[in-house]
């Protein structure tokens, strides 16, 4: 192998193979998906995030939350995501259509967040947790984010603002008010749920359900049930 030209050809071909097979081909298959219409509710899935939640996604990205938190639920039988109650079903490509960027995460130093909006629906909890994680989850190793909040001095007799965090020092002369970034991040976390059953990810039926499975177990929600041409 002394020919530079032949070497270059081989080098090109080897990377081209995965560039084609792992990037271009899947792009044709799953890279041009559109939201699907759910038969049960006639709504589109996934729904576009409201404005504040979209700003929260930017805060999530900028703070690097993806370094400790994942946003994917693995299938039943692979890991214990289900047993931990992190989702009703595994996550699939359809769930991430409107995410920009898609932050699946690769390390779980904190719990998975794919369905945190379904697990923890209280905005105040999220704000308290961001300000001081140990206040809502004793022993938590998550770093606090005090810079997302503002400590304001209360003048004599001034009442607390409605969004001030209710922390133990209720009688102190300071109040802690979330900044817009904190509110946005909280809204984003509340918007995170992917538990609608889809055709490619039916909610796994447990033994107790199977006996009485009728229309109550959400019906197939895509309209293309005959095998599609490949």
């Amino acid at each position: 192998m002394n020919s530079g030209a032949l070497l270059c050809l081989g080098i090109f071909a080897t990377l081209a193979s995965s560039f084609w097979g792992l990037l271009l081909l899947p792009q044709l298959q799953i890279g041009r998906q559109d939201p699907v219409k759910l038969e049960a509710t006639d709504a589109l899935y996934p729904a576009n995030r409201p404005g504040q939640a979209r700003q929260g996604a930017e805060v999530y990205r900028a703070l690097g939350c993806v370094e400790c938190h994942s946003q994917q639920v693995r299938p039943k039988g692979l890991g214990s995501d289900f047993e931990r109650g992190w989702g009703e079903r595994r996550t699939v490509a359809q769930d991430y259509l409107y995410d920009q960027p898609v932050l699946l995460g690769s390390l779980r130093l904190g719990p998975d967040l794919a369905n945190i909006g379904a697990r923890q629906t209280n905005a105040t909890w999220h704000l308290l947790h961001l300000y001081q994680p140990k206040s809502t989850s004793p022993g938590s190793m998550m770093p606090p984010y005090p810079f997302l909040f503002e400590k304001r001095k209360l003048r004599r007799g001034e009442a607390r603002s409605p969004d001030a965090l209710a922390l133990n020092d209720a009688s102190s002369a300071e109040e802690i008010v979330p900044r817009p970034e904190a509110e946005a991040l909280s809204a984003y976390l509340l918007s995170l749920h992917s538990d609608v059953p889809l055709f490619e990810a039916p909610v796994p039926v447990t033994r107790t359900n199977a006996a009485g499975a009728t229309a109550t177990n959400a019906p197939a929600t895509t309209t293309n049930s005959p095998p599609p041409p490949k």
Partner: protein
Amino acid sequence: MSAPSSPTVAPGAGASPAGRPVPVAEIDASLRWPVLLLFVSAVLWLVLGTILALIASIKLHGPGFLNGSAWLTYGRINPAAMNALLYGFASQAGLGVALWLLCRLGRVGVCCQAPLIIAGVFWNLGVAAGILGILAGDSTGFQWLEMPRYASPILFAAYSLIGLCAIVTFHARRERPLYVSQWYLLAALFWFPWIYSAANYLLVFRPARGVMQAVVNAWFTNNLLGLWLAPIGLGAIFYFIPKLTDRPLHSRPLAAFGFWTLAFFTNWTGLTQLSGGPLPAWLPAASQAANGLMIVPILCAGMNWLLTLQSGGAQNQEHLTLRLVRLGATCYLAWGLMSIFTGLRAVSEVTHFSYVTVAQNYLALLGFLALTFFGCFYYIVPRLTQVAWPSEKLARWHVTCSTVAIAVIVIALTIAGLWQGAKLNKSTADFIALTRATLPWGGLFTLGLLLFLAAQLLFLRNLFLLLRVYGEPCRQTAIGFFTGAEALEAGRQP
């Protein structure tokens, strides 16, 4: 197969007139400024990256540490550290090593110095802009591609200059037959711009829709290590092992077989890190299939190196560079086997999302690449500057401490990761409790990084002393110039 070459061999067939090989000292002299710039910058970024990684590791077991500002939050410091290590240290050291190896193996000096120096400066500017951008909150969010869109084009432009010079130098080589290292180096130089530009385009500039972003990101991270940095390290190992033992490499056909199997299978294995992820079944399956096949290139490389070393006998086994290169080679084999193992679905069920992936990355970055590049530094820098390393003691301490530190880091993270992964993925043990239980291992990780940082500071001191000796003639001239000028002014003889 090329006949054993000697510097006086007549030029072989080739389009360009080969001519007599350039003397080694001239080659080294031509490379002096570009490669020194790349190496010194690399070492500085290594120190900075290690400091950032150290801060991040402290936050793992002391989350309140330095959390007053968004600039120092864990989610920004950690990617900043990894980017500093990958692009600031490993890539620059790799570029310097690649240039030097290509020139030496081609028996020709580098084609041009000024563009390389400009490119080196811009590369550093780009990395600095990128790191600051990440700390400021402009991170793109994609693993190892966090540098914002105003920094990555600088890197790409700087790389293009260097790559171009490398290709021109390669084309002008006097020794036409190719050696094994040149295959790896050419491959790396060709693959990097492709993966870097494709990933940036598909993720940052014209983002793909939905989960395809995760696919591109996984493809990129796998190829950054496996097709850009690893081949340069392999090229260096394939160069130094035969050279320092003064034996020919055991088998060229074996090396070719290993090269092509590595080239073909590595780039398909990227998606094993997404097994169980939101992708149709065939994507991770394709990667897992390629993952199993990776045992072949690893066996080839290992066999070649082992048989070459064995044939060398006990001679020259004490050479510091050879020691480092052998350590680096061992870490490469360990990393390769670890990657194959953790790519299997049954194993990744436990190790996914745990510290084991972090351990794997540090084994590659510090164990394989850093140790190999240190070996290159110790060999190349004296030849560039014609100055011996001032302190052999500092050098040996550097090597010993680095090796121990890397062992501590990798072993601590692996054990922590296996335990954490088992508890996380095979049980419903309380999440917070199990994260807290990894704290002691996190502490060991921090200690390992501290030791590594200390070792690098020793190396930095040695390097500084060497450069001071190197710069001594200039200093003397400058002093002489100024004292002479003063004396003239005072009307006295200097």
